[in-house]
């Protein structure tokens, strides 16, 4: 006699995925999350100044954005700050992670907590604090171009290096110290051990955390708002001021470009992370 057992198979947690109400919730969530962004992108191609109703497809506003000197300057500023922020937070983050990983010292737990504080601290508090701080120490406001960005760059490093430190610290925890000893034993100098064994191990974490630092810096508004001056406008600030003037498809176009850069960076970060996991998985 055959036993039928597929009528009432017990539900394991993943089975809920196949229930209709679960799918509905999932769809609604996605719509709430991404519909506004989709509208933003679509209306960047809208052939209408007022940008309220759809009037036909055009690239006009991308051209216009490309010819908008203020916007171009903002992009250059943003990218410059982003690059310096990435370098700065990588260096600080690596050093912090190494310190927390390799050494034991008094109040280490306290130090670890303080380092992570900027991650949870409200951005508005950091922004105001920095504004007051830079005023108090009398940071020069009229420096020539790349140096004029230093205030924003420092501010960005402040809140993005903890993310770098966390990611690299997690990666370091999986490092097998015997590998380092094996390399020494095989005749490698300390420098060779660093470049041939240590660096390859943390490289994925370096790439991921670098890209995260870059995107954090690129789209930061609150902290940048408090530390930027008239000559140091970044893209989010510029878009904000354009919106106050009027919401034209040009704003949509600029936002779409920013979105694209951010997505690319995040995409690369994810891809590297996945590749790392699948390759290191077994060891």
């Amino acid at each position, binding site marked *: 006699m055959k036993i039928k057992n597929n009528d009432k198979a017990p539900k394991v947690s993943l089975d809920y995925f196949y229930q209709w109400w679960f799918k509905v919730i999932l769809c609604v969530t996605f719509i709430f999350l991404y519909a506004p962004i989709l509208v933003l992108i679509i209306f960047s191609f809208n052939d209408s100044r007022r940008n309220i109703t759809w009037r036909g497809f055009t690239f006009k506003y991308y051209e216009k954005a490309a010819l908008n000197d203020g916007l171009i300057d903002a992009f250059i500023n943003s990218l410059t700050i982003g690059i310096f922020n990435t370098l700065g937070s990588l260096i600080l983050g690596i050093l912090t992670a190494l310190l927390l990983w390799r050494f034991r010292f008094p109040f280490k737990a306290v130090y670890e907590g303080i380092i992570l504080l900027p991650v949870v601290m409200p951005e508005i508090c950091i922004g105001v604090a920095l504004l007051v701080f830079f005023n108090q120490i009398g940071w020069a406001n009229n420096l020539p171009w790349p140096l004029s960005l230093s205030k924003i760059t420092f501010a960005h490093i402040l809140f993005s290096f903890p993310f770098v430190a966390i990611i690299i610290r997690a990666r370091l925890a999986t490092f*097998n110290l015997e590998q380092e*000893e094996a390399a*020494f034993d*095989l005749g*490698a*100098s300390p420098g060779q051990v660093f470049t041939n064994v240590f660096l390859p191990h943390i490289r994925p974490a370096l790439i991921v955390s670098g890209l995260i630092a870059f995107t954090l810096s690129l789209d930061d508004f609150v902290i940048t708002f408090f530390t930027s001056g008239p000559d140091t406008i970044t893209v989010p600030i510029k878009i904000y001021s354009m919106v106050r003037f009027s919401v034209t498809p040009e704003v949509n176009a600029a936002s779409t470009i920013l979105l694209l850069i951010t997505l690319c960076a995040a995409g690369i970060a994810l891809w590297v992370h996945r590749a790392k996991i699948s390759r*290191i998985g077994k060891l």
Partner: protein
Amino acid sequence: MKNPIIKIEGITKKFGIKNALEEIDLSIYEGEFFAIVGPSGCGKTTLLRVLAGFEVPDSGLLFIDGENMRSIPPNRRPLNIVFQSYALFPHMTVLDNIAFGLKVTGVPIKECYQRVKMLLKLVKLSGLDHRFPHQLSGGQLQRVALARALVKRPKVLLLDEPLSALDAKLRNEMRQELVRLQKSMGITFILVTHDQQEALSTADRIAVMNNGRIKQVASPTNLYESPSNKFVAGFIGSINLIKCEVRQIEGELCAVTTGLTKDLFSIKGKNEISVGQSYLMGVRPEKIQLTKLTDIDQYDNKLAGIINNITYLGRSSMYHVKVSGDENIVMNVSMSHSDRSENIDLCIGESVLMHWTAGSALLLEDHDS
């Protein structure tokens, strides 16, 4: 076996208040397969790490090939180590892993790959050159780790429990492989293991360690047949120990009493024993014969007892016999099933006689020095 390739003189290493190594003196000769055995935590790994240069001893001297190693860092010592975890580089292929030690010391690329190819063949890994470590089985990883160290042509190869992660069958194969490699390359091997069987079956000489000290260094046969103390006798193989007192010495043999029976036992004595002193009489389970309790007078060294339990082990059975006279003493007697034919009806609760020849018993110091 002429000059010691490794000479250890009075090396002591402390971790906090605990002595991981105490006054180690050891000479290991060129071309030897040397094994270090001992229970977990006795300091085997620490000793290897001192040799490799990863731990600095608190006192004592270490010479490798006549050269004092005091200020020589690990990357300039003429020996290589195979780690228990293999410690292969996960981001490098098999080829690059093995070539690593040559590349970093500036061996020309062409010679590098020739030597690697040769070694791959030697450890039977040809064809796997471009695999990554995570694509290999445990036994293959083991071979890569071995090849990576051997390609450097070290004077001494250190192996820290290299086979403990393998299953029993593969472990056996690899043991023979190790011996084959060692003999064909003529490199001195130092194998650390807690498996006495592994040491007995591979090594030319074995050092038994306990609590940071070396208890005995001898060939496998000598270690098993004439252990110099209680610890070694119990660690290498199993042994029945009975307290005894020496009554008489006649040339090779000495007569001892045990307090269990009125009988004297004769044992092949050692050189520096004295009459009236307490010792331990040790008899290995397989050296004891079991018969039914008849014709008692026929044998010299004998003890009566009752079979308490029988453990079936396949080729043989272990009989646990309670000694009449002291219920607390249980002797283990191993009988192979071919010998057992006449004793086929020995069963639990039966009274039996254990007997052995004078030459098969050992006289051991009672205190553990």
